[in-house]
Each structure stands twice: as structure tokens, then as C-alpha cells.
């Protein structure tokens, strides 16, 4: 480079994703591969044990213990035999008890911060990260959990990893990554009343397919996103993985900063304005080029309900289910046939009026206070239909406490819902909250895979208001008629 070069070249317009990537490159490995620095690591009891084993076998210590935060959420029971709802020491399932004890031994040995079972910060890892201020804009965040996409709602580069990669992050604070292509999903139009972020997420997945956003970092943008709460943005980003994308993003803005200010782990004092000024730089530049662009006019959307065994098999409530015979592509035809058989549904039918046995309100997708309010608004003054087992599982202890302060627990219990302790619960069915073969669940969770909520169980994904309405009606129904 010439020493008397004075003219500075204009910076090329970059996407939010590219800025997050560029600001974390430790070393470039090839044109599209780099060693990325990892700022934050969330751990839970299911995916972390093998990473700790690898650390011990290699005689390694954590490079920066303060960048890790652990919690038990997947295997924890959501009921307690104790009157004070304490769960520590009460776990009946010996395997779950052993797994949680192993996490507790690991976090003690490696000096990792831990939200204990009876702590006010216990909850689903993707709910407590943001609530505690552990999740911050402009950072890289990983977790042995595919729904780590959730944290992208804060303008963080957040993605799920396997246990081996967790071990690498623990020891080296870095990961080799391939740069993703970029996709912008712009949400426009007038948002209809009762159209939830979940409905928009499901409509997006149905539009692009279960693998449609693979290889892409998806940025959600546009006036509808700008007007959304953090809870809604988290629902959108959470579901990006169901379209095959490891990364969902929303640029941080005043809504993000207002959410974070004063959180326990958020920057304080003079660090706060400095952090906000830095975070404001994390927005896609005008003129930044995305590899793919999709515009969704939400004014045309109705509440969505999944009918099959991938989240992409979703339709507006009341629509006729597909007829496999009319599908030309053999793989898609076979997939639709298998899904209809597993779900015990017939081609061309509507889901309206299909009876349910269970309703589940909770999960890292829809277990936040705003979700519980939306469900309670439908439930208030009504009762769960006979024969339906309906549970509400707050996403975190903090959410549970906040909901109780508003009296939401009383609304749910008066209507015949069970009011549970926080955890992943019936989204992953690793504790005793699970479906039996043939059960059918109206669920606010994120996956309708075969057996996801219990072997032989059938899942219909929908918004909190729609799941609440289904619990009341005893069948899949249009929540707009109950509002």
C-alpha cells in the first residue's frame, strides 16, 4: 500500500449479519470461513455433559469462566411435591435427577454461573438469557440448542451448536464457522387484530419450506418488526431454525435498549451509553445487498395451524388440507401422505372442529409474559372443555412471578388450566409432561415432528391465543371468534 494514500475509500454497505461476522473474526481461514470469537455461551443439562467430559479428558480449563451461564430446563419436572413449589431434591425420575446433578457438579468444578432449580432466574435458557441481560446486542452467543436463534432478536449473532463445539468454545472461546448467505424478510402491511408473531413465523416457514432458509442468516425487518415487542421478535427469530436457518436477526433499536436497561447483567453507569452507541451501529446499511429478499404482507394473514409433521406443513385456520394425489413431486407427495397418516387426518378436510386432548402453553417460542397475557385474554371467564388436559408452563421463574403479580395464574386455574413451574416441558417431552400415543395437542411450541411431544403424540402448532381457544372449545377453533 502506498504511504501517501490519503483518500479513504468509502465503506461498502454491509448487512447486520456481515457486521456481526466482521466484528468477531479472529482469523480468516478461507474466502468464506473464519475463526469467530464467541462472547457468550449458555448451557443446559442435556447437551453439556459430554462437553465437560471432553474438557476433563484433555485436562483443559475454561478460558473465560465469566462468559458461560448454565441452567437446567429440559429435564426438570414442572410440578413439585412440596407446598412451597421447591424442586431441588424432589426429582422423581432417577435419570433426570442424575443429569441435573451432573450439571450442578460440572458448574461447581468449572466455576460457571448457574441459575439453580429454585432460583428466581431459573427457566428456559432462551428466556432467561434475555431476562438476565446475559444476551446483549452486537455479541456472538452459542448454546447446545437449536433455538439459540431466539437471541438474534437482540441483534446478536446467536446459533445452536453441538456438544463437541461447546467443548471448543469452553477451551478456546472460538469456533470455525462458514459465512452464511443473507436473506431479508420484510414484514409490511396493516397487522390484523390478534395476528400473533407466531402466525407470522409459521406463515414464513410455510412459504419458504422446512429447508428453505438453509445456509442463510435471516434478518426480519420492516415496519411490522419495528413495532413489535422484544417477546414478539424473539418468537420470530426462535422459529427461523424451523425454516432451516441457524440464524435469525432483528436490528437492535430503542425497543431493545429499553428492554435491556437495568437488567442484572446489562452494562451499567458510564458503560450503558457507550454500549448503546456501539449497539446502534448494528443495523444493515442502506443499500446493503442481501442474497435473497422476501416481502410478506401481514394484512392478508390469518391465524396459522400446522397440520403435518414439519412446521412448514402449516395452513391458515379453516383452510382445506392438501390432497397428496394432487401433488406432482413424488417426495412431497410421500411426505404429505405420511404426515396425514401420522396425524390421522384426511385430504381436503379442515382442521376446524378437530377434537384435541391436550393444550400446552409455554416453551422458548411462546412462554413469555406477553404470550401468557394473550392466552389469558381468551381464557378469562371461560372454562377448559371436558376431557382436555390444559397446562400453562411459564418460560421462567421471573415470568411466573410477574404473571402471578398480574393475577394471570388465577385466570388460568379458574378456567381449569394447570399452572406449572418453568421448564421446556411438553415442547420436548423429556420430563413427565408428555403425550401418549394418539393424543392430540394444541401447542404453542416450535416443532410438530413425529413423537416430539411424546411417542405417537400429534402436535398442532399455533399461537397462544389459538391454543387457549382450542382448550376452551375442546377442538381446533378460530380464536378471533372468541376475542
Amino acid at each position, binding site marked *: 500500500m502506498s504511504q501517501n494514500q490519503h483518500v479513504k475509500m468509502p465503506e461498502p454497505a454491509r448487512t447486520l449479519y456481515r457486521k456481526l461476522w466482521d466484528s468477531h473474526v479472529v482469523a480468516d481461514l478461507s474466502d468464506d470461513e473464519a475463526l469467530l470469537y464467541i462472547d457468550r455461551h449458555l448451557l443446559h443439562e442435556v447437551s453439556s455433559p459430554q462437553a465437560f467430559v471432553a474438557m476433563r479428558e484433555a485436562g483443559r480449563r475454561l478460558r473465560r469462566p465469566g462468559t458461560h451461564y448454565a441452567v437446567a430446563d429440559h429435564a426438570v419436572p414442572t410440578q413439585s411435591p412440596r407446598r412451597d413449589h421447591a424442586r431441588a431434591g424432589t426429582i422423581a425420575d432417577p435419570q433426570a435427577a442424575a443429569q441435573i446433578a451432573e450439571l450442578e457438579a460440572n458448574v461447581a468444578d468449572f466455576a460457571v454461573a448457574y441459575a439453580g432449580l429454585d432460583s428466581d432466574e431459573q427457566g428456559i435458557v432462551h428466556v432467561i438469557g434475555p431476562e438476565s441481560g446475559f444476551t446483549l446486542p452486537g455479541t456472538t452467543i452459542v448454546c447446545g440448542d437449536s433455538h439459540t436463534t431466539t437471541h438474534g432478536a437482540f441483534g446478536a449473532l446467536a446459533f445452536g451448536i453441538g456438544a463437541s463445539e461447546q467443548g471448543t468454545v469452553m477451551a478456546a472461546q472460538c469456533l470455525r464457522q462458514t459465512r452464511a448467505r443473507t436473506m431479508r424478510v420484510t414484514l409490511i402491511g396493516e397487522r390484523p387484530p390478534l395476528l400473533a408473531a407466531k402466525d407470522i413465523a409459521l406463515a414464513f416457514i410455510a412459504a419458504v419450506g422446512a429447508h428453505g432458509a438453509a445456509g442463510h442468516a435471516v434478518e426480519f425487518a420492516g415496519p411490522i418488526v419495528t413495532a413489535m415487542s422484544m417477546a414478539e421478535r424473539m418468537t420470530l427469530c426462535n422459529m427461523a431454525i424451523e425454516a432451516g436457518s441457524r440464524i435469525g436477526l432483528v436490528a437492535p433499536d430503542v425497543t431493545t435498549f429499553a428492554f435491556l436497561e437495568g437488567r442484572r447483567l446489562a452494562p451499567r453507569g458510564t458503560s450503558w451509553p457507550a454500549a448503546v452507541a456501539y449497539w446502534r451501529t448494528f443495523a444493515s446499511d442502506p443499500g446493503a445487498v442481501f442474497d435473497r429478499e422476501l416481502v410478506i404482507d401481514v394484512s392478508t394473514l390469518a391465524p396459522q395451524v400446522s397440520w403435518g409433521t414439519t412446521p412448514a406443513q402449516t395452513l391458515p385456520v379453516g383452510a382445506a388440507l392438501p390432497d397428496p394425489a394432487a401433488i406432482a413431486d413424488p417426495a412431497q407427495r410421500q411426505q404429505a401422505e405420511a404426515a396425514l397418516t401420522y396425524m390421522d387426518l384426511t385430504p381436503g378436510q379442515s382442521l376446524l372442529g378437530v377434537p384435541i386432548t391436550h393444550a400446552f402453553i409455554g416453551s422458548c417460542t411462546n412462554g413469555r409474559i406477553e404470550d401468557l397475557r394473550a392466552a389469558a385474554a381468551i381464557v378469562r371467564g371461560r372454562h377448559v372443555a371436558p376431557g382436555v388436559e390444559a397446562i400453562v408452563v411459564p418460560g421462567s421463574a421471573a415470568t411466573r412471578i410477574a404473571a402471578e403479580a398480574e393475577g394471570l395464574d388465577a385466570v388460568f386455574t379458574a378456567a381449569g388450566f394447570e399452572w406449572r413451574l418453568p421448564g421446556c416441558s411438553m415442547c420436548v417431552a*423429556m420430563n413427565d409432561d408428555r403425550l401418549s400415543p394418539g393424543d392430540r395437542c394444541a401447542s404453542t411450541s416450535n416443532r410438530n415432528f413425529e413423537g416430539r411431544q411424546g411417542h405417537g403424540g400429534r402436535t398442532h402448532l399455533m399461537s397462544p391465543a389459538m391454543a387457549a381457544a382450542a382448550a376452551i372449545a375442546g377442538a381446533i377453533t378460530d380464536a378471533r371468534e372468541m376475542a
Partner: protein
Amino acid sequence: MSPPPFTTLTGVAAPMPQDNIDTDVIFPARFLLITARDGLGTYAFHDRRTDADYVLNQPAFRDPPFLVAGDNFGSGSSREQAVWALTGLGVRCVIAPGFGEIFHGNCLRNGLLPITLAADCVARLLDAAAAQETFTVDLSAQTLTVSGDILVFDITPERKAALLNGWDETSLLLTSHAAAIDAFEARQCRQQPWLYPQDASA
């Protein structure tokens, strides 16, 4: 933990033509309560194997070194148990038009070679697999040979070298990039001191 090196592989391929075979199908969540990583082959496709006619219950495909699958194989959860269950079953190579991204990364860290090929090509391989033809892969040459047909597949040079040698990624990073990691942290600590609270209070 170093993965076993991958050089060549020969044997039958179990055909799984369905698209979107997710990690819950490969390794049902209820078995995630097991914290060991060995011995998980028993649980691979557990709920599918309850069907006596399922491909893995047919004598020819009981311990297949290869799987040929539909698009988006391994979608869903990040659980590495899905990969450990496959390697526990003896699978060392999966061929599909596309993979769940986290699953794909997990394969590479466990000496399991994921090969991405065009859908029409995989459709032909599904037929060959069903006919119990012999599959041979040579990673060094990046070729897959099935009944005389030689197919070439893509893999980055770094990934290829890591698989061929059975390198442990963590050791590799710590030995070859230690100075770069130190330099990054020093720079980031100056720019974003709020990410280094312990250093600030020390």
C-alpha cells in the same frame, strides 16, 4: 476428543427416501436423559424400528456403513446424540441432497462424512441402495463409486484434512491460533469493556 480418521469406506447403504428426517426421528428426545456418548446405536431411529418392515430391520441393512436419505436430513435439534447414535450403529457416511446445518457440523466433528449431491443423483443412489449395490467412498480422491459409476463430491480442503487425519478441532485451534485469540480479546476489551466485567473490577 479426537474423531476416528476417515479415509475410505465400502459397503451397503440403507435407503431412507423420505425428506426432512429430523433429529427427533434419529434420536428421540426421551433418550437424551442418557449422559454417555457411547452405546447410543441402540436408540438410533428407535421409534421407526418398532416397525418390523423398517429398512434397518431388514437383514441386509442392519449395520449399514452408508445411509442415503431425502432432503434436509438431520433437521431440527442440535443434539449431537443423533450423530453418536448413527456412528454407534456403524454409519460413517450419509448421502443426501441437503442436511440440517447443525447436524452437518456435528457429523464432521465425529468422523462421519456427510456428502451433499443433487436430488436427481440421490434419487438414483436410493435405487442402487435398495438393490443392495456396494458403495465405495474415497475421501482423498473425493469420489463415491457405485456399480462402476464414479461421482465426485465437494468438501472444503480444511474439512477434508481434518477428517482424513482425525484431528481434534479444539487442539488445532489452541495450537495454531493462540496468539490471534489473545490479540482479539485485548482489542475487544478496549472497545467493549462491558463484556469484561471481571477484568474491569480487578
